């Protein structure tokens, strides 16, 4: 009885739960104009918040030091450095920083040296916070804080805190200088023609890389804290006036709404703020290229860059964006169009080839050309396994080689991969475990999945391949059709930050001639319709202003 109830529960229609779903609708113009700044999320670091915070900086230096020691578990915790000294040889003070996060030469030369110098001329001066900031510290960025919690947060970020006896404020001095990786070449998204810079783990560097390309005052970077325990920051970049402020608001709403101890970089963040985390298809586009980020920002999208991960996550994106390579824009549009077509072919091969093969060979023999059929059939004479099992076995072997090759260190890895593929393929044919054409099918499908420029979508397609193999094996072409219908329907119902996943094709919006075939660059005059950008036009009129208007007429 219980079982029947449970089955009934699965099948019967249930009222959908009334959850809020973000939609990007076309709105009144005024809403578009009102900037994103009206909302007060995040961190306008300053006095406003500290008022309601009881844990303020004490007047007495000792108390402050005690408090800091307690908070940082000093002296058990060896990372924290508390250096006590006298400002201008008279007032007691101390600086607090984390060893390794702060730059030592800044502290030695521009903080301690400046503060400890005996300036006899001004002996009678009263030492105050203002005096120190105005006259002593030769540091570009200084903030004053009242809340001790905020001070601690800043210390954790690598800044140096200066407490002075008798002052109820604390000076936080910019002194970040931790070890970081240099800017290197992109490893996943390599191009032949085009810039070769990639993001690094340092947030500031990454933001600079983008700003270096878009030198526009409208490019806004907002910081949002991430994670409740690890206090990472993440930056949201967008271009005011182009990006729809509603998207900015929604992204900030989602990020600030997160409550978890640690977030694993941009990959972890993406999963937490995606509209449909159960779907195989990613709804944020990850890139390691600043130029691609800049391009997408100019299209009216948002970039989310996390501290500590060398990627930018771009949103909203559609399915088609995952098949664009940055090289598409550097090459002649005809070449890029060809490359795009190749990628679409590769995608369909990677997705459907094994499924179609199984469907044709065990259900629809009449659809295979006679000669090929005889060859296939002849090759299978020695194989004792059913085709479906044979195919799955080879697919799994291929995945093994792929994963195994990745884990084997260094140069051996690649060699093992190639040798594994060749030897295993050859041997399984010789041993009569697989037919040679089947090995071709598996390898072509495997090779094709490498032609897809985005890693996450390539992975999704790699997994979907198994699903379609299964569907093809269960019900032939009918099964594959049903599979396309089911997964196509699911994918079409998805949204990436309010933008339908398959726009501008489903739903049909104004054509963006940049989906499959790339239109010549001078004809791309408008930003995508589905993004509802503040400014649709990419040009003041003619892209190539140098073309003479009377060109077509008689040049007399």
């Amino acid at each position, binding site marked *: 009885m219980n079982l029947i109830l449970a089955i009934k*529960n699965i099948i019967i229609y249930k009222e959908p739960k009334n959850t809020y779903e973000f939609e990007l609708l076309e709105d009144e113009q005024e809403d578009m104009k009102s900037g994103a700044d009206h909302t007060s999320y995040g961190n306008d670091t300053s006095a406003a918040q500290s008022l309601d915070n009881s844990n303020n900086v004490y007047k007495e230096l000792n108390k402050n030091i005690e408090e800091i020691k307690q908070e940082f578990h000093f002296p058990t915790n060896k990372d924290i450095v508390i250096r006590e000294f006298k400002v201008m040889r008279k007032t007691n003070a101390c600086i607090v920083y984390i060893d390794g996060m702060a730059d030592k030469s800044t502290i030695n030369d521009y903080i301690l040296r400046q503060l400890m110098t005996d300036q006899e001329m001004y002996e009678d001066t009263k030492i105050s916070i203002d005096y120190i900031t105005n006259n002593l510290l030769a540091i570009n960025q200084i903030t004053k804080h009242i809340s001790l919690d905020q001070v601690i947060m800043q210390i954790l970020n690598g800044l140096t805190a200066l407490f002075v006896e008798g002052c109820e404020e604390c000076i936080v001095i910019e002194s970040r200088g931790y070890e970081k990786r240099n800017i290197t070449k992109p490893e996943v998204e390599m191009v032949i023609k085009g810039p070769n810079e990639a993001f690094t783990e340092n947030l500031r560097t990454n933001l600079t890389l983008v700003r270096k390309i878009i030198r526009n005052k409208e490019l806004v970077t907002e910081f949002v804290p991430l994670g409740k325990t690890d206090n990472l920051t993440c930056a949201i970049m967008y271009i005011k006036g182009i990006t729809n402020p509603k998207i900015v608001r929604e992204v900030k709403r989602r990020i600030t709404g997160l409550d978890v101890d640690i977030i694993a970089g941009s990959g972890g963040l993406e999963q937490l703020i995606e509209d449909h985390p159960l779907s195989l298809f990613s709804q944020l586009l990850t890139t390691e290229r600043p130029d691609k980020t800049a391009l997408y920002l100019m299209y009216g999208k948002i970039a989310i860059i996390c501290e500590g991960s060398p990627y930018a996550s771009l949103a909203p994106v559609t399915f088609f964006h995952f098949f664009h390579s940055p090289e598409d824009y550097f090459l002649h549009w005809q070449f890029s169009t060809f490359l795009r077509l190749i990628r679409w072919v590769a995608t369909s091969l990677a997705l459907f080839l094994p499924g179609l093969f199984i469907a044709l*060979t065990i259900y629809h023999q009449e659809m295979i050309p*006679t000669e090929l059929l005889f060859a296939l059939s*002849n090759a299978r004479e020695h194989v004792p396994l059913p085709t479906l099992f044979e195919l799955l076995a080879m697919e799994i072997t291929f995945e093994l080689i792929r994963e195994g090759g990745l884990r084997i260190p260094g140069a051996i890895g690649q060699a093992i991969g190639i040798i594994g593929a060749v030897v295993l393929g050859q041997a399984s044919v010789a041993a009569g475990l697989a037919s040679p054409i089947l090995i071709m099918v598996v390898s072509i499908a495997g090779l094709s999945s490498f032609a897809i420029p985005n890693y996450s979508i390539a992975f999704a397609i790699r997994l979907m391949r198994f699903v379609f193999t299964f569907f093809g094996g269960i019900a032939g072409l009918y099964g594959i059709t049903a599979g396309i219908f089911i997964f196509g329907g699911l994918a079409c119902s998805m949204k990436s930050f309010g933008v339908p996943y398959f726009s501008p094709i489903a739903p049909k919006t104004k054509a963006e001639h940049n989906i499959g075939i790339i239109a010549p660059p001078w004809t791309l005059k408008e930003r995508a319709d589905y993004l509802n950008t503040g400014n649709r036009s990419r040009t003041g009129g003619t892209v190539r202003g140098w073309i003479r208007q009377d060109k077509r007429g008689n040049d007399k």
Partner: protein
Amino acid sequence: MRKVIIMLILCTFLLSLTSCFDSIEMDDLLYVIAIGVDKGISDKWRLTIQFPTMQEGGGQMQSVSGGSSGSSGHSYASIDAPSFFTGIDMLNASLPRKLDFTHAQIIVFSEELAEGGLIGEYIAPIARFGDIRRSSHVFVVKGKAMDFIKENKPLIGTTLSKNFQVLAHASENTGFFPHVTLENFYEDLKSPYGQTIAAMASVNDLKSFAGEGEPWGTEFKTGGSYFAGQLPRTGKNKIEVWGTALFNGDKMVDKLNGDETRFLLMIRGEFRQGRYTMKDPKRPEVIIALDVRISKKPEIEIDIKDENPEIRLKFQLDADILSVQSMIDYENPELLPLLEENFKKTVEEGIMALIKKCQDLNTDVFYFGENAAKNFFTIDEYESYNWNSRFKEARVIVDVDFAIRRTGTQIKSYPIKDPIGVE
């Protein structure tokens, strides 16, 4: 969790109950590539099938285990059965794989069957059977279909199926036999617009090829005047496809030789190219070879106002000169019309003779009916007019437009020097 488990159980049920019902492995099938139909002796049907044995040479695969057995890779089986489908099942007694007809390339009827008017009876199950492609070729074979299939071996390459695939092109390039598919054949059997034809095939016993005897003199023969099975040839391949079988209803009434077949295809608009030999108008003992193509679909007008319908046939042929044995300068614009006139006359006479022959047999294999139907507003009217019976009385006017367009790689012929001092 509970939900997940129930889902899994449901899926298992669903899939285990329905899945893979139709699936069959490729190598569990036996692919029939030729079907032969004869009158049976022990039962009504004598069904012959030909199939690749999937051993050496049957397919294109190089075998992993080496060693050539030297066999052709094809085999056949015959059975006498009360019906086509029972025959298939009975054949399975000796052939342990499921017979698959989806790749059948040819269907062969024996001449005996066709002349007995039995095609209708025998083609009914074949036309209804969903597995057999309507695009497979239909032959009427001189002698027994079984003998034809026995001799049907791949001479070039290892696969038979390829032979039949190129057959259609051979028909277009030579015009000596028509390209008739099951679809055309069956539809024409029922059609009120004309009568059906089939390509003639036969096993040549190679006896027409005389080993000894008087050498040929200067008498002229076109080469297309043979009937199927009579070509004076020898070699390994015994089968040949040549000429046409003419039907009236489902009864085969006559056959055409190679030349007549070419004229037939010209009128039907299916002729594309063919090389002709003609007598040199100035020196009849030597020949001129022409490469003839049809440049436009024939224009056929049919007038039914009079008691007897009038058929006006007009078509345009083009040709290149392939050889002029006499070295007479026919490229010369003054001599060229002589050649053209001569050939035009041959064609016109041939066509008239062919139409006369068919009228005598009362069979409109040219499909003139389709043009005759243009005179009627409704199909009912046309059907009551009964074209197939009126064709016999039709008057025919043939107008061939013939032009020699190119002269090959020579733009002028010069006579060869006479031998000096030689008797």
